[in-house]
């Protein structure tokens, strides 16, 4: 008896191509995407960090510091002239993770600083969405370079004082110098006020808002298919309800639901997250920008949901395909793996994911405190995609209604 039950179950699964997709193809694609996205993370030959140096010191030591950084295969130095702060800000939004500014007199003061002549710190300008681990890694490499400069100098200074008996005297020469690693480099985050730091809440909440918004795919498509199955949609058609009106009856409520989601998740970030010891979410300066991005995201999500709903036949297919699309868009779009961890090919692929557009827009608002003009492009792309998906869904739906009766 058990044998026939087993055979029956295998046959049912084998004949259900959507179940097969969920069980085998989805994990395979997911593994593929995640492996490609993360393939260089543990590969020491690959440059994880992109940076540029603005050398105002122009000494032998500053050059030595630069060549020390360049010798690290994990770091990739961009040779670019960043003549003014605007260029630096642009570069940090687009291709760079860090810009290191070596101020005039840095190495001289580093080696000879005392009470009257305090240390002049390096300045690290970091991209606002940089992960803390990445910043720590870069700072430690930089500190290593500075330490190397100091050791070289110590060696040069101590050599004439040998023999060993005179070491105490030599050491006294450096006694007045306090070596505080934090003083070596000061960090300033791009687009943020001096002293302001991006928090993990600011960095992660936008991702989960984007991901959450796309979950409307499942309830929307499920209800739509039930209506199709029970002929409620057919009945509405016979009552002079046109396809645009029918779609509008879906789009508007689900876009409102999306707005409720956005504000609920923001409220969680602002009021609940701090209760667990993490930093509270701050809203940024632009409610208009926030609305533009969330409107575009919502339209894309609802468009995707309706297209799925009109393209499949059963609720099971809708939940399976909807779930798969949601996860894949999230994986490709930088929700699960930050885009800067991905190789270039994957980063380019991420640019076609609506989740990536939405995420970039939200990061501009939440993290960088930018205004509506900075999210125009992302919002426009999302709206165009949403409208396109709805148009395709309309064509598919009308065709299906004609053929099904």
């Amino acid at each position, binding site marked *: 008896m058990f044998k026939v039950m087993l055979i029956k179950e295998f046959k049912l699964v084998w004949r259900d191509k959507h179940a097969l997709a969920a069980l085998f193809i989805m994990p395979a694609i997911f593994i593929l995407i995640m492996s490609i996205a993360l393939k260089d993370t543990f590969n020491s030959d690959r440059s994880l960090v992109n940076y540029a140096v603005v050398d105002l010191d122009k000494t032998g030591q500053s050059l030595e510091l630069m060549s020390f950084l360049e010798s690290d295969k994990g770091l990739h130095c961009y040779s670019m002239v960043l003549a003014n702060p605007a260029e630096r800000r642009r570069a940090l939004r687009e291709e760079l993770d860090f810009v290191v500014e070596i101020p005039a007199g840095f190495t001289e003061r580093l080696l000879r600083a005392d009470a009257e002549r305090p240390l002049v710190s390096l300045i690290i300008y970091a991209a606002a969405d940089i992960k803390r681990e990445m910043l720590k890694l870069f700072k430690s490499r930089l500190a290593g370079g500075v330490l190397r400069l100091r050791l070289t100098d110590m060696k040069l200074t101590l050599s004439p004082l040998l023999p060993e008996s005179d070491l105490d005297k030599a050491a006294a020469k450096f006694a007045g110098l306090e070596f505080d690693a934090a003083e070596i480099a000061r960090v300033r985050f791009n687009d943020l006020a001096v002293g302001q730091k991006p928090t993990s809440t600011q960095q992660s909440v936008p991702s989960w808002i984007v991901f959450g918004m796309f979950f409307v795919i499942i309830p929307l498509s499920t209800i739509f298919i039930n209506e199709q199955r029970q002929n409620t949609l057919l*009945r509405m058609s016979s009552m002079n309800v046109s396809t645009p009106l029918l779609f509008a009856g879906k789009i508007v409520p689900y876009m409102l639901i999306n707005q409720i989601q956005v504000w609920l998740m923001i409220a969680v970030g602002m009021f609940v997250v701090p209760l667990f010891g993490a930093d509270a979410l701050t809203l940024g300066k632009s409610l208009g920008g926030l609305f533009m991005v969330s409107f575009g995201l919502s339209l894309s999500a609802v468009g995707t949901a309706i297209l799925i709903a009109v393209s499949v036949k059963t609720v099971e297919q809708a939940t399976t395909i909807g779930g798969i699309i949601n996860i894949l868009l999230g994986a490709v779009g930088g929700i699960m793996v930050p885009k800067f961890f991905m190789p270039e090919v994957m980063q380019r692929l991420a640019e076609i994911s609506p989740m990536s557009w939405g995420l970039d827009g939200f990061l501009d608002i939440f993290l960088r405190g930018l205004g509506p003009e900075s999210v125009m492009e992302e919002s426009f792309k999302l709206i165009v995609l949403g409208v396109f998906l709805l148009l395709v869904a309309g064509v598919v739906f009308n065709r299906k209604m004609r053929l099904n009766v």
Partner: protein
Amino acid sequence: MISVKNLTKLYGDITALDHLDLKVGSGTICGLLGPNGAGKTTLVSILNGLAGFQTGAVEIFGLPLTANLKEIRRRTAFIPQSLALYDNLSVRENLHFFAGIQNISGSTLRRNLDYAISVNRLDEILGQRAATLSGGQKRRLNIAIGLLNNPQLIYFDEPTVGIDPESRHQILDTIRTFRDDTKTVIYTSHYMSEIEKLCDEVAIIDRGRIIRRGHLKTLLQDEQSDSVVLELLSSSLSQLDEIARKTSGLKVITSTRLFLLDQNSLKMGRLLSLLEAEKIIVKHIRYGSTDLEALFLRLTSTGATDV
């Protein structure tokens, strides 16, 4: 009321309706009969404007269908076989929703709601969620939704499928009241007894063509045939299927009813011997097409040509 001329509908290479003609007068309850795949649903879908067609002309209320679809739909109702309603809404909410999407409001809404509720006896269950209703109550709600625009023409697609006899009677009583209200009804069903009890006219459709149409009594009188209906006392379907394999023209209708096409004394004698051998007692033998079921089976079995 309805005038269909030379209607052809193709699904790719498949001909669903083949130069079909049909006329239904105002205030008539017309039964549309046909085997599965005969074209009933396609015809009703075209009449509702839910499907297009390749050739032919359709007029409803004297108006060409395609050019006046919105106006025609305002005066008609389609009551599908499936329960096209929302389980998670109450009876009242369902009625208000479907009235709302048809822009019915004010005194018209109140009047039409009262009519739909009273005719379908929904007064006591208005607050109940549709999901909690019995099969019969859901069917009645399904019909009530169709009456919200006070239609002059109503299409019913198998409205009594899967419900208990009491609910079926209630629904048939409701449909009878439409005759008094001079509403026209197109009624498709597989239950011949319902069609016989309810309909003034019958149209039998087979392979995309109307093969017979007219007043039921006249049709039954006019159709002379050599077919025979045998009523049996008791038997099993497996026994009858075995006998049907050995007898050409024999159809098993139920475990107590057989239909023999083109009978003659030799064929009849052989059949009675086979029944006797299986110890099946014949209660009654009727010669000629005396009921709709027999007429329907004969016409659709022989591939009768259209009228």
